[in-house]
């Protein structure tokens, strides 16, 4: 009985324990349930509220600039590229060891310590919060600053790093220095393009605003980074070839220095595609040093400046006449004694050529022949062909501030304007326009718009491709006839110095008096000498224009000043383009017939002397024979000699002078 009672009591206690346990469990279930309900409420009902609160505490955004786009040449060589650099700045109010800091920064950067300390002290006095100590430091300099300023605790005069901080910047680098400087241009310290491609392609190149959102933990360590606003800058690939550009610049510099000229410009173009392979100007500049440049030095004269083309423009005159069927190359024209009177004014040839074929008239650059041809055409036809060849309007090459040239409408022409324009006066052109006109002939009468931007790339992938449009200007037959005439200019005309070694070539010389602002009219002592040609003559691979501004000394004619530069460029560029030789080699050149010798300068020694480079480098000196003494005065005093040397002289009437004043 007692046993039974004990069992009953044990059962009761177990029951009590069970009930208690279940109560605890129930409590926990209730507690967890309550927490769960609360969590659901927070995460579902109040989700957005707490999420925004959390984000505000754990994330922050930074705004930076992406790197400015790069500029490449057609082979992928870098012409301009931006890199991140560090600059050192200080809060003057916080700097306590001015002397020590100035001394260390001076030792590292080479700046004067006194200048740095005065900057800081002036900043202190003016209550400024920011002064630059050193900008765009190299990696070595950054390491030195870290070591000597930020980690140097030995200075007894106070902490050097106090108030000093790094500022990240980007620096534009032009690794090729002056090469193609006028085409590439430069960007200012705010990374905004100011000239050249840097300016015209600003929309692609510009460094975009970049907003990054970073998530951090409570200790400030970055956990994730997301770009919110990001439009990366694009890279621009040019049609220029670095090597051809170098060849062109070298030849141009030689031409300008040899003739003591004021300036020069040269363009090399592929006539079939319209791609500009090289565009050079001299004097040139280094885009990295843009802060030191004088205003206007960066002006790309090859596309911005306009000049009277002179006889080069006879291409349009004869081209229009051939296209209209007025003449054939073999037809003859009476140039008489080398004089023609139009509207009461007389135009002269450099020498009388008599009755000659149009081929010879072009080769001898007869003004009379060109004027007669233009008069036969009429002013409206002449004007329309000049426009068709691309004069008086922009070519759309893609460079900033391109000049249109000056080509007045026929309604505004006066008595002698047609005659003047037919020989390249009373009209202004850019070097690019003349190249384009000759490229049209080289390309069998089809004009392909010139282009300098080949494509735009983003992150290495093609983003935009540019292709030139083309249109027919003259019939292929006309172009072939013109080629024939232009070939004769080189073979037996005013441009014998453009005869190439191993290749055939064709082209036209131009020598024009310059308009002088100071005297308000043309200055007969100032010339613009040019040569525009292409090679090989029958299947041209390149069209080259050389324009030399104000050559001084004995050599002034385009055939003497610019043609040798053409020769140098073509002879170097054609093998580089793997164009097989199609002409006669120099050793096999036919000797000039005696009757032609009179057209060469009487004093050929003088010409050779002036041709020799002015001892710029050893290589040039080695290459050329030792020049004899110059006698430039003698040459200058005799205009007849100048004529004999091929200088195309003419008398200008009032109308032409007025036109030149525009």
């Amino acid at each position, binding site marked *: 009985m007692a046993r039974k009672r004990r069992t009953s009591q044990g059962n009761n206690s177990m029951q009590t324990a069970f009930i208690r346990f279940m109560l605890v469990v129930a409590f926990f279930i209730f507690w967890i349930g309550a927490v769960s309900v609360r969590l659901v409420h927070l995460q579902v009902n109040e989700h957005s509220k707490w999420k925004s609160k959390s984000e505000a505490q754990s994330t922050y955004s930074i705004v930076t600039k992406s790197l400015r786009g790069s500029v490449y040449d057609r082979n992928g060589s870098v012409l301009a590229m931006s890199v991140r650099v560090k600059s050192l700045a200080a809060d003057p109010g916080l700097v306590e060891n001015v002397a020590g800091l100035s001394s260390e920064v001076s030792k590292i950067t080479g700046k004067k310590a006194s200048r740095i300390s005065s900057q800081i002290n002036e900043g202190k006095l003016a209550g400024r919060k920011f002064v630059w100590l050193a900008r765009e430091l190299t990696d070595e300099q950054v390491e030195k600053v870290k070591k000597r300023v930020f980690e140097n605790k030995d200075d007894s005069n106070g902490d050097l790093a106090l108030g000093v901080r790094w500022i990240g910047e980007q620096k534009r680098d032009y690794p090729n220095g002056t090469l193609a400087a006028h085409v590439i241009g430069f960007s200012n310290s705010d990374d905004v393009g100011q000239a050249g491609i840097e300016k015209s392609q600003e929309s692609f190149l510009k460094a975009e605003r970049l907003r990054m959102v970073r998530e951090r933990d409570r200790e400030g*360590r970055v956990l994730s980074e997301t770009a919110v606003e990001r439009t990366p800058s694009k890279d621009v690939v040019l049609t220029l070839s670095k090597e051809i550009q170098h060849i062109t610049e070298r030849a141009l510099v030689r031409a300008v220095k040899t003739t003591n000229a004021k300036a020069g410009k040269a363009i090399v173009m592929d006539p*079939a595609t319209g791609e500009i392979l090289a565009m050079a100007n001299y004097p040139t500049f280094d885009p990295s040093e843009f802060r030191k440049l004088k205003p206007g030095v960066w002006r790309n004269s090859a596309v911005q400046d306009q000049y009277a083309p002179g006889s080069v423009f006879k291409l349009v005159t004869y081209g229009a006449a051939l296209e209209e069927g007025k003449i054939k190359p073999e037809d003859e024209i009476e140039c008489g004694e080398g004089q023609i009177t139009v509207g009461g004014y007389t135009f002269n040839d450099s020498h009388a050529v008599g009755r000659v074929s149009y081929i010879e008239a072009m080769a001898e650059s007869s003004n009379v022949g060109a004027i007669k041809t233009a008069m036969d055409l009429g002013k409206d036809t002449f004007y329309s062909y000049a426009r068709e060849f691309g004069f008086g309007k922009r070519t759309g090459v893609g460079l900033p501030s391109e000049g249109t040239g000056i080509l007045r409408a026929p309604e505004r022409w006066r008595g002698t304007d047609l005659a003047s324009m037919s020989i390249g006066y009373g009209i202004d052109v850019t070097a690019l326009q003349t190249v384009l006109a000759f490229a049209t002939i080289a390309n069998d*009468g089809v004009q392909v718009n010139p282009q300098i931007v080949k494509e735009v790339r983003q992150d290495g992938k093609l983003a935009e491709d540019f292709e030139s449009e083309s249109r027919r200007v003259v019939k292929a037959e006309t172009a072939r006839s013109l080629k024939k005439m232009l070939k004769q200019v080189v073979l037996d005309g005013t441009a014998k110095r453009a005869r190439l070694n191993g290749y055939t070539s064709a082209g036209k010389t131009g020598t024009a008096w310059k308009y002088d602002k100071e005297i308000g009219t043309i200055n007969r002592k100032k010339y613009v000498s040019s040569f525009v040609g292409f090679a090989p003559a029958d299947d041209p691979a390149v069209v080259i224009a050389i324009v030399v501004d104000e050559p001084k000394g004995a050599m002034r004619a385009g055939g003497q000043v610019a043609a040798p530069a053409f020769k140098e460029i073509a002879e170097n560029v*054609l093998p580089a383009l793997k164009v097989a030789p199609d002409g006669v080699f120099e050793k096999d050149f036919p000797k000039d017939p005696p009757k032609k010798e009179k057209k060469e300068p009487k004093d050929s020694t003088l010409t050779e002397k002036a041709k020799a480079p002015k001892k710029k480098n050893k290589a040039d000196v080695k290459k050329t024979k030792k020049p004899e003494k110059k006698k430039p005065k003698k040459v200058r005093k005799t205009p007849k000699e100048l004529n004999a040397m091929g200088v195309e002289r003419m008398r200008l009437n009032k109308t032409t002078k007025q036109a030149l004043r525009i």
Partner: protein
Amino acid sequence: MKRKRSITNRSSRVRRQRDPIPWKYCVLSLICGLLLVAGFFAAAQQHFSSLGVAMDNAKLRVKIKQLRDQKRKLLISKERAASPAKIATLARKIGFTDTPRTVVTGAPEVIEAASTRDAKPMPVYAAANQNDKSSNRKEVHVKDKKRNPGGKNVKAGKKPTPNGSQVAALSGSDLINNVRE
């Protein structure tokens, strides 16, 4: 007598069937608790490992940025060293002359070169994106020169164009090779 038995006595005699200890429930609760705790631990571990990965990622991002900057600097250094003007200056320094290359001296080579075509070197921007197979840089096609017979708005075709190695092979690289020798 039997009828006088108290109610209590009578009920105490009833034998009720009860479980001795609710082990079943205890174990079940314990398992649930352990699972819950294990879940919390797993979640915490995931959380902290993701934080660790994020921090490593951030460091790598900084490193990539630094390496890209370094690459750009090296590229510029390379371009500066290989600029034609620099090569010409160095060549002159060691005694090479500036004689323009003409077809007279190397006519056979040029003719030979004109008939053979070197492989185009990979441009820098392409080399920088080698992994990107979708890079669709246009190939240069050799076409007949007289492909523009005329007509308005004819698309200009591409022509064999010079490339770096070809040009260098005939100008700068000759010098470089000579210098090396």
